[in-house]
């Protein structure tokens, strides 16, 4: 059986696999330079780690540039319709415990039209891994703002600047009872693959927000978090059990001030012990939520990446299977003739 608990019912690979086993024959059609290429490579490089048969992996996507992803993986895949992938994947994962089911979606696909399915998948905790490619723009429709675009953004549909306050996908997921929420970056393959491994290991719905660059319509949206000169100052790398520190010289940290709110402080001034320790496994999502509020929408200051939350809760599909099993244990498997007959019959002879 796979080393990943969430895949306990999935057949293991009989022979070792490599990234190229997961490349499909389709020519990749993203714009040259698109962040999606990096994510694709990272995923193809990661999938062998699952140690399961290729034919037992399914990628379901919605619509968007990001949602073209499944075409480029030599697994089973469905390029569905805009925003509905989590619903479709829910039906698949609930009926097929022997599959590893992944959802590929974008910030528009998941948070705009697909918002309802996303939050319900999270609360149900279906055994799905949702990769949300967040480029803060609608790519495929050529550059309108998205629910993660910063307010005031000038786009094709907002020549004078957008007026909607943006969503924070991590906060939204935590408010929707998510059991696993993480964030990573397209260009940081190591971190990305680490987060994918954690997500894959989680039984239930895992939401992974991936900061992705759209070099055509929203170039450099996340550049400050990638640029070696600036990222050290901005990125907070969450490590389970560790005090939350960051900064070029780890000189900054996160501490809870008496007013009960989290603040970024100078370690020198408060000392390491004053810092809060990260605990993704805490049942109470309060801390994870507070962390999700630290970052600045515009400057990207204090942006945590890594696993915000990772707690156990029986997955929906497991509960469904157990309920069916227990009923069959009680009543035996169904007797069709008996069902049709029912209880209230009479005979005509």
């Amino acid at each position, binding site marked *: 059986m796979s080393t990943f608990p969430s895949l306990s019912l999935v057949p293991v690979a009989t022979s070792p696999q490599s990234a190229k086993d997961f490349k499909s024959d389709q020519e990749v059609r993203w714009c040259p330079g698109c962040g999606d290429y990096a994510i694709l490579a990272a995923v193809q490089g990661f999938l062998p780690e699952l140690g399961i048969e290729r034919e037992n992996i399914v990628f379901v996507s919605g619509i968007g540039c990001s949602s073209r992803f499944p075409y480029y993986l030599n697994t089973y895949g469905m390029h569905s319709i805009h925003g*509905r992938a989590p619903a479709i994947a829910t039906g698949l994962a*609930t*009926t097929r415990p022997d599959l590893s089911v992944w959802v590929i979606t974008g910030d528009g696909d998941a948070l705009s039209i697909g918002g309802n399915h996303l939050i319900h998948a999270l609360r149900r905790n279906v055994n799905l891994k949702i990769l949300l490619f967040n480029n803060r723009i609608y790519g495929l429709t050529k550059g309108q703002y998205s629910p993660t675009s910063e307010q005031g953004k000038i786009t094709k549909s907002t020549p004078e600047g957008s007026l909607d306050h943006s969503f924070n996908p991590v906060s939204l997921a935590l408010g929707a009872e998510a059991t696993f929420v993480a964030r990573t970056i397209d260009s940081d393959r190591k971190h990305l693959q680490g987060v994918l491994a954690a997500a894959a290991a989680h039984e239930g719905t895992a939401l992974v927000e991936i900061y992705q660059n759209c070099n055509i319509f929203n170039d450099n949206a996340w550049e400050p978090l990638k640029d070696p000169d600036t990222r050290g100052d901005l990125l907070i790398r969450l490590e389970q059990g560790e005090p939350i520190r960051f900064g070029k010289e780890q000189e900054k940290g996160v501490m809870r001030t008496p007013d009960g709110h989290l603040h970024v402080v100078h370690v020198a001034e408060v000392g390491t012990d004053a810092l809060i320790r990260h605990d993704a496994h805490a049942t109470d999502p309060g801390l994870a939520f507070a962390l999700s509020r630290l970052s600045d929408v515009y400057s990207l200051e204090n942006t945590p990446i890594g696993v915000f939350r990772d707690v156990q809760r029986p997955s929906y599909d497991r509960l469904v299977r157990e309920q*069916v099993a227990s009923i069959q244990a009680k009543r035996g498997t169904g007797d069709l003739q008996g069902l049709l007959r029912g209880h209230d*019959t009479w*005979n005509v002879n």
Partner: protein
Amino acid sequence: MMPRIGQELEEGFFVVKQVVRLSKVIIRFAGDSGDGMQMTGDRFTSETAGLGNDLATLPDFPAEIRAPQGTLAGVSAFQLHFADHDIMTPGDSPDVLVAMNPAALKANLGDLPLGKELIVNTDEFTKRNLDKVGYATNPLDDDSLEGYHVHPVALTSMTVAALSDIDISKKDAERAKNMFALGMLCWLYSRPYESTIDFLNGKFAKRPQILAANIAAFEAGWSFGETTEDFAVQYEINPAQMPTGTYRNITGNPALAYGLIAASVQSGRPLFLGAYPITPASDILHELSKHKEFGVITMQAEDEIAGIGAALGASYGGALGVTTTSGPGIALKSETIGLAVALELPLIIVDVQRGGPSTGLPTKTEQSDLLLAMFGRNGESPVPVIAPKSPSDCFDAALEAARIAITYRTPVFLLSDGYLANGSEPWQVPDATTFATIDPDFATAPNHLDANGNPEFWPYLRDPVTGARPWAIPGTKSLEHRIGGIEKANGSGAISYDPDNHDTMTRLRQSKIDGIADTIPALEVDDPTGDARVLILGWGSTFGPIGAACRLVRSQGFTIASTHIRHINPFPSNLGAILASYDKVIVPEMNLGQLSMLLRAKYLVDIIGYNQVRGMPFKSEELADAILEVIQTQGAPA
């Protein structure tokens, strides 16, 4: 223990009532939503079924759960037609109206023909209740009920009296009045009562007082009927002649649910229902959720879109994906149905039609979603459409829908309606061993060679006969493939924007659906005399009323041919020929002429539509008149 006719009650007192034999009776129970009229009707129905009468029922309840007592909005009714011969409808108008309060009387009196029986619960005719519904004076006192056989019965007080020595609240005692009424009518129509006693025993097992009360009320009603001077006669209705076999009474929604389960068993595919509750479809979800022993999975989704989405996902994984809803829900599912058309995966979409447009009349019946089912998607997006004709036929129609969906890898519309869903009729329990198996015929190996002669899998390489594409489910080795909603190259299934390919694929999808006609039995026409010049053609739940209307017409010495189509897309192959062979064709529909339009467009026949949008099934009398009018105005044979 209840007395029987002729039995000696006590010294010298014999039960001496005249017994009259009837061939059919139509009873309507009407009362407050809180009065339990539906349950009363159901009980009387199963007693009647047990007696072997043929029967048909029509519940009619408001969209509100329980509007304030005594208001017109709160009136709930149940009509039952039973007879010693086979009947086809719940009946046009009642022979007996049981009115539990002034509101029920006001709302239903209009349907009661003069000279018929009217049983009223006098206790409820208080000033307050009369005011609520705008009766200036008490109709029981003024002459407004002249012309009816009125039986004033103090139902409530007699019930309370009968329960005096059972220790329950007055409120609970009054609640039992429907059982008093039931007992009374059971006596009046010589219904047995054992199954009702059993039923009550089951229902109130945990509440002995309530149980005692209901049984006592039932028996009190029975004895009252027997002893009161007011009921001079007791009626009997002989069993109807029916083919030998085991029968049960069934409504459309459970029948449809059973059909889906049977399809799951016959195809060996687990049944997955993705549904969002909506009247009048919810009971299918409720019914299926009771039968998990068949491996049935029922998911109450967050909305209709998720419901069908999950069902499609399950189908993609090899399950029998089903979604159930009513009109407004279909509108929401349209986009996903379009995806299913593009993916060419099996999927069953059940639409239990109700009054529209928009929220419309949620608890009323209508046939107005036909064109939505046919055309409610962007692009050229053909979907098979089939419709059951009676409550029990919902079972067969569901099986047929599954056969088509699985064989042709296509979403299928199953168009039921509110009348079929809640109406009931006796059903000869079919022998499960006789059901055909449905072969999912999964793809198991590559079906094509690539340029270098290596085997590969083409998800859109079609079966030469059916035009169906292979169904290769995840988990099947070396058939890994990607499908989606963008146009695909014919065969390989790769994304293709090629103009000619799109034209080809569009026509291939269409011809696959058209080709289903090859597996549809030829349509049969019922024309006893064989020389009818006028044909009446129906679909769906109008089957009963049309059949009854034809009988009326024929009983008056006229000839009329009739036929009923279950497959609306594609039509049976011989439909055109049939239409062409009559001088006039009448198509009655509970809409403004949707099937008529399809027939006119395809066959260029000047269909005569007979249309009502009243949220109610046709009255066979009206239908008969309409037919006669056509027959009589019919010109010389062309």
